[in-house]
């Protein structure tokens, strides 16, 4: 009986590698609520989500590239978020282009275009992703600095709404939800199967007739697009385009994706996992803040959780796949 339960548990963990992360996230959320009862009230949700959105989107924007395999670690997402925010605040709004109907598409276009370039570098020109995006990291940080030498403040109304509420809906929720809508649409097409196949074994996919380069370019473009959304979230949350703000997201975003159960080798994982992973990191931060303990503890804890989570998820998925293999041998 116990082994049966264990097998079922392992099986569900393999099909849903983010399940463990979700449990941790829920525990952290409850802990946050206990530590500070005003943490998540009806009125605090919008600002909570607005704070969370840029980082959550950075993690989500890192995911498609990683799913596409070939070591698709995109370290240019942080600077890209930043560049988009600089473009929106410093170039568009500061120069009088205040309509969201222009600004939002422009932000998304910048993100997608940068992603597409990364995708071409990786998919067609065969650059290793870390190297291509290391180059992107330098160029985008440079561009961000060049465009906006000093942080500029803005109080543009649609941006303010996005940072708080659009009608009754928290702006952060809209921002975070939008990549998932895109993903849901894609799930109805043939694309996601091919994305996971390319990530799982690109040689097999190529020989079977999958257009690996186009699948990969699309993945990077999607990542860029999501980073565009993240840039908007960043602009909404900070109301400024501080060029040094988001570069710090780069590494924690990768950590969030890993905690969320997405394989860094590709072919396994989900956007949802990355969101949960990001939530864990975010909730640790807020918990520490609420507890008002030494503000230097979070880094220590977050590092430890990162290592434990990645080790646990790797061990579990291996045990689960071994259990699955054992079953077929016995059958």
């Amino acid at each position, binding site marked *: 009986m116990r082994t049966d339960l264990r097998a079922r548990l392992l099986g569900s963990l393999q099909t849903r590698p983010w399940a463990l992360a979700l449990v941790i996230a829920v525990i952290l959320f409850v802990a946050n609520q206990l530590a500070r009862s005003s943490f998540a009230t009806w009125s605090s949700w919008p600002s909570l989500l607005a704070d969370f959105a840029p980082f959550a989107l950075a993690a989500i924007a890192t995911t498609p590239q990683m799913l596409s395999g070939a070591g698709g670690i995109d370290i240019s997402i942080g600077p890209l978020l930043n560049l988009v925010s600089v473009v929106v605040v410093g170039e568009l709004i500061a120069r009088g282009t205040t309509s969201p109907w222009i600004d939002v598409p422009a932000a998304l276009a910048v993100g997608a275009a940068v992603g597409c370039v990364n995708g071409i570098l990786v998919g067609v020109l065969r650059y290793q992703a870390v190297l291509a995006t290391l180059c992107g990291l330098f160029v985008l940080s440079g561009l961000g600095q060049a465009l906006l030498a000093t942080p500029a403040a803005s109080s543009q109304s649609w941006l303010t709404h996005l940072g708080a509420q659009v009608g009754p809906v928290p702006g952060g929720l809209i921002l975070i939800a939008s990549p998932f809508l895109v993903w849901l649409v894609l799930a109805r097409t*043939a694309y996601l*199967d*091919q994305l996971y196949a390319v990530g*799982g*074994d690109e040689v097999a*996919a*190529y*020989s079977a007739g999958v257009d690996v380069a186009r699948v990969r370019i699309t993945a990077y473009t999607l990542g860029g697009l999501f980073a565009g959304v993240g840039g908007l979230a960043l602009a909404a949350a900070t109301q400024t385009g501080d060029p040094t703000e988001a570069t710090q997201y780069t590494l924690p975003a990768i950590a969030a994706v890993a905690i969320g159960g997405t394989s860094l080798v590709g072919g396994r994982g989900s956007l949802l996992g990355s969101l949960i992973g990001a939530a864990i990191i975010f909730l640790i931060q807020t918990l520490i803040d609420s507890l008002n303990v030494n503000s230097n503890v979070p880094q220590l804890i977050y590092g430890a959780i990162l290592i434990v989570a990645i080790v646990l998820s790797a061990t579990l998925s291996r045990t689960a796949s071994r259990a699955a293999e054992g079953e*077929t041998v016995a059958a």
Partner: protein
Amino acid sequence: MAVVDPSRAPAAPSGARPAPPLLRVQEVAKSFGATRALRSCSLEVAAGEVHAIVGENGSGKSTLVKLLAGVHLPDAGTIELTATPSPGRRSPRSVQAAGIFTVFQEVLVVGGQSVLQNVWLGSDGLFRRSVSESAQRARASEVLGELLSAPPPLDAPVASLSLSERQACCIARALVRSPRVLILDESTSALDVATRDRLFTVVRRLCASGGAVIFISHRMGEIDELADRITVLRSGESVASFARGEATADELVRQMTGSDHLTAGTERAPAGRGGATSGRILLRTRALRLRPGGRPIDFQLAAGELVGLAGLEGHGQHALLDALRGAGAVAGDVSTGDERLLRSPQDAFAAGIAYVPRDRRDESLFPSLAISENFGVATMGADRRAGLFSRRRSAARLANYVSELAIRLGSPRQPITALSGGNQQKVVVARWLAAHPAVLLLNDPTRGVDLGAKRDLYRLLERLSSEGVGVVMLSTELDELVELMDRVLVFREGSVEAEVPRSELSADGLVRRFFGGGGAQSDAN
């Protein structure tokens, strides 16, 4: 013995064929850097025909397949599929759109995805699905049912299947899309015997309905059984083409090698090592179990013995090799003749047991490193001079084996990837010979290796055994088990089904035992 003009393309075939060829390859050539892999190859594949392509390693077979499959573009010459316009930019995708599907030697599946996803992999557009999911399921079960007696559930992850079932998925991937030309490149080497026979039935039916199959195999028996026409490649040229029954095996071998050294090395003094079993015991297992519930194995290897391991894929022969190389088993232990327990591969190596893994690319080669380092990796201590590692010394040691194993290489400083598959395998074998092992364990060392290299390897094994080295070799080639081994252990469901002494070895007998005893006569042959 109607050999078509051996110097050039088989021009117009003598007997007028009723149908125009389905696929015409004219004088294609392909070079990789300075290596001319294919000089001039021409062949015509008629509808309804199984067209075998034979040749030694390095003769250009795999290159030809990759050109046909759209993986590479030819430098010169044309490939046309009559009745459909040639695809513009050749890629696996465009070639498949024209109806040519290739099953490669490597088992190319995506482990994390389901059987269904793997079978239909590559058929869709970037976003648009080509076939509805329900139609996909129906077609996939139909085709898998033809290939496998017990097809896996369509939603099972491919990672949980056996190697043979995985390759069946690759074959099904081609079949579900109704190929006009199906290319099977050594794809039978990963299949178990039952699946192979089922595949042959499917192939015959495909041909009967007007398709064509290009068939590549190192197993002469399979070619005899299946091929309507055989084209011989030698040094990148198509040198001869025979209709079924036109050429004897000897003739084919002569065309492949360009000489008459057919029988050299395959003959063997039958009583040569009759008394070998009375020799010193080198390795023994006690109550070894390869899976829970398996029968215990008590195995002894004597000096100078050649022991073969056989069975259907995944029935325990691999696990026994793993146990013998010190990598552990479910229960029981492995020790040397002088009772030293082997607890780890390091223990085993220290006790003089060397293991040549199965998968050359994944388990043996260091692609970015030099040939000499690929050779010396297991015995680097011997290349130390005054504490420093000497490449020259490594290369000098390799030179000893270059002549013995007939390895063809330029400079030992070249990367290992500059060598052909057979020569890479010889370097790997040399790696382990350099350790002067008392026991040599080999995991299907002749898989995908050409006749010449096989013969070199057989000769080596004979010599080793005459020097008192004990050899245990897993093989999927019945011929080499029958001709070479002192005895063969046949595995079935994780246990030793039978131990067949040399005097009783025959191909049919082995195959019958794969299926558990003498009942399944029809499966032999």
